């Protein structure tokens, strides 16, 4: 027993030496993770999209149309980047990507509205840029509804109604929307809390494949096994320990930054979130061993790993819900560790749901370990005989 621990320690020591010899390992793990954390948090630091540019086609050029412009511009979510009497100009600006929405005020708007001729407002959004378009859409829709409302208010005032009665006539129904756990509609909370663990998962996958595959490629795997006393399990554990420590530290510090320093919502247990990211690291390492074991040629394993890893972001369902995917992809999502992590995140951080919704994904993450058993023999042989085309 003591022998085994000593061998594990020896393999780990050898691995630390290898790690320090090539800048790639530390750069690709700590460097990339730090860069991505900084990048994603800084680009979304303002949370929800604000001051999205829109154009106003003011064919009327009256005091009312100008007031409509001012009021649109005074909102938080949009700003007027262009006022023009010509629709073609605004359309061109939209095609250039300079504005996300256009509000068109028809000619004679003022004259028509005061003479009850119901002039029609038009608004247009550019769905090719969905985030900007949604923001502009909501605001322009509100502005158009408010225009009729403001007119009604004026008429009713003239008729002598008191203000409190006017309000309920203009707005007989109101929706109060409650956005659970993210009342600001903050994109950082929505995206970053899954993207960063996803990037970590990708790093773990690629680096683990690389660390094992590089031994095979450089035919140093026999020496590696020798240090481990010929024991495959010892060799694996010893090799992965130093990396695992780095990954776990990275994962936990990432979650500490998000949930402790930036106060992203955690309705449930933050301890279980920490456990989830540790399990994500283990699951990704298992997947990496499975891939390099199935394809003990570094170049193939790296390519397949990259293809598999990148799909994880789409298939985890944090942007496009899995519910809406075709059933073959619904089945595929079970093979994506990030999907299980995301489920735990939703349950623990956002919903504080029943504990089984955390336990099942947690067990699924642990289950990825079973895949490695399938390739043990093959990988062990590859390490001993170097019997695969190693280029």
């Amino acid at each position, binding site marked *: 027993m003591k022998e085994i621990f000593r061998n594990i320690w020896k393999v780990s020591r050898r691995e630390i030496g290898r790690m320090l010899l090539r800048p*790639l390992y530390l*750069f690709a793990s700590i460097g990339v993770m730090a860069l991505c954390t900084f*990048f994603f948090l*800084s*680009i979304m*630091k303002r949370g929800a*999209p604000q001051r999205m540019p829109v154009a106003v086609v003011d064919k009327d050029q009256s005091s009312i149309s100008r007031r409509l412009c001012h009021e649109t511009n005074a909102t938080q979510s949009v700003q007027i980047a262009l006022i023009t009497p010509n629709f073609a100009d605004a359309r061109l600006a*939209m*095609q*250039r*990507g300079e504005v996300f929405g256009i509000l068109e005020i028809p000619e004679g*708007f003022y004259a028509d509205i005061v003479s*009850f001729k*119901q002039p029609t407002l*038009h*608004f247009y*959004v*550019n*769905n*090719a840029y*969905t*985030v*900007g378009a949604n923001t502009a*859409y909501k605001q*322009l*829709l509100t502005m158009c*509804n408010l*225009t009729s409302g403001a*007119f009604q208010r004026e008429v009713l005032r003239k008729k002598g109604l008191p203000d409190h*009665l006017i309000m*309920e*006539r203009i*707005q*007989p*129904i*109101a*929706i*109060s*929307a*409650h956005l659970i756990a*993210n009342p600001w*509609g903050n994109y950082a*909370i929505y995206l970053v809390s899954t993207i960063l663990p996803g990037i970590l998962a990708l790093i773990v996958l690629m680096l683990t494949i690389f660390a094992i595959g590089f031994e095979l490629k450089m035919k140093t795997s026999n020496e590696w096994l020798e240090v481990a006393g010929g024991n495959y399990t010892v060799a694996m554990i010893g090799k992965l320990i130093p990396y695992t420590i780095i990954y776990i530290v990275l994962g936990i510090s990432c979650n500490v930054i998000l949930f402790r320093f930036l106060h992203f919502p955690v309705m449930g247990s933050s301890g279980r979130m920490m456990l989830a990211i540790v399990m994500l690291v283990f699951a990704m390492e298992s997947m990496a061993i499975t891939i390099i074991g199935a394809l003990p040629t570094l170049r193939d394993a*790296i*390519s397949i790993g*990259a*293809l598999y890893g990148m*799909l994880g972001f789409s*298939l985890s369902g944090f*942007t*496009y*819900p899995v*519910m*809406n*995917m*075709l059933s073959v992809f619904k089945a595929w999502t079970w093979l994506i560790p990030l999907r299980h992590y995301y489920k735990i995140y*939703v349950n623990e951080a956002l*919903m504080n*749901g029943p504990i089984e*919704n955390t336990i099942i994904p947690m067990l699924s993450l642990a289950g990825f370990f079973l895949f490695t058993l399938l390739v043990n023999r093959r990988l062990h042989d590859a390490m001993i005989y170097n019997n695969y085309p190693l280029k």
Partner: protein
Amino acid sequence: MITRYLNNQWIKVKETWWVFVNELRRVFRDPGVVVIFFVATLAYPILYNFIYWKDNVENVPVAVVDMSASQESRAFLHKWSASPDIKITHYCTSMAEAEQLMRAQKIHGIIYFPSDFAQCLNTGMKSAHISLYCDMSSFLYMKAVYLSCNRVMLEDMSRIQVDRYQAMGMDKKFSWMLVQAAPYTETALFCESGGYASFLIPAVLMLILHQTLFFGICMLAGTAREENNELYLLPGRRRRSSVLRIALGRSAAYFLIYYALGALVLLGVPRLFGLPHIGDPVLVLKLLVPYLLAVIYFSMSVSVFTRNRESGMVVLISSSLIFLFIAGVSWPQQMLPDAWRYLSYFFPYTWGVHGFLHINSMGATLETTAKEYIALWILAGGYFLLTCLHLFIGGYLHDKKINAEYLRERRRNLKLQTI
């Protein structure tokens, strides 16, 4: 004199041709690069289309808590349930029950009618309130639930307003005029469906071209480095003077392959899968020229730093997400901090993706998207010079090494002779 000059030039052309053919041979003989260049470039777009097959989110399950239990609330729900966006799956008797369902992720939205809902509507003394609870685990749930409910609310509101004005003694026509004092139309000018696939996939297509080319070139450079095949990087006797021939010959090989692939992907995939494609195909092909050149020289400049065949991919794998976000597609360009925005101008993807979206999804002409088009040419030129500089430095160092060896050899020979 002139014939000698022409002859020299002709030899240079032939050498460039040799580099070009040799590079093509290297690409096709390397199964890893073939997989990245051909299989990934063609398989990924198809895979992504199948993942986002349904485009819009439909039938989001929601629960109803109707404390008012009135005709009005039922009429509202009846209209709402007709919307394709949502599906009412649970009717709960209390908020606590609905909350349990939401926590268990069985539903993604709750609509709550307070007990005085009908009373408020009928007496007209207060606004009636509806509470809507949205699951924020995916913004697409929220969008589906909130927007569809809002639409029903706006429609209902006009009807109620008309009723009230009639009750005040106005006639029906006048009430409508008052309520719809300024009616409006809403139009999605481009990408009418407003779906996720029709927005994201065109951007992803450009990214796939970028990343496969990028990783493929890094892989080729890394392999050359591993094999210590300096002849490959720099043929000819004096390496540093052959920079142009190498840069042109190699990039021509990549360009040839990717122009065909790019045309196939950018023109074929949107048509095959019914994504937006209102642009002129010729313009897409025109934009593809500077885009590919810029990406090729960008990748060749970066590939200098890859020591191994695989290391480029290991380190740069997460760059895909950074490119996607810094380009201002998933996240509006206007929201990027200035420093990141300026940095993004140096990436060919930033200009390429906007140019492609403008032309393909928004039907822009080349004049309209001139900014992107010109920027791509500038980047292509800039990165070409950088590539040449890198090759020159490499060649210079190589020449120096060779010369030093040669001198050492000669000195040794001289010494031998003198002895």
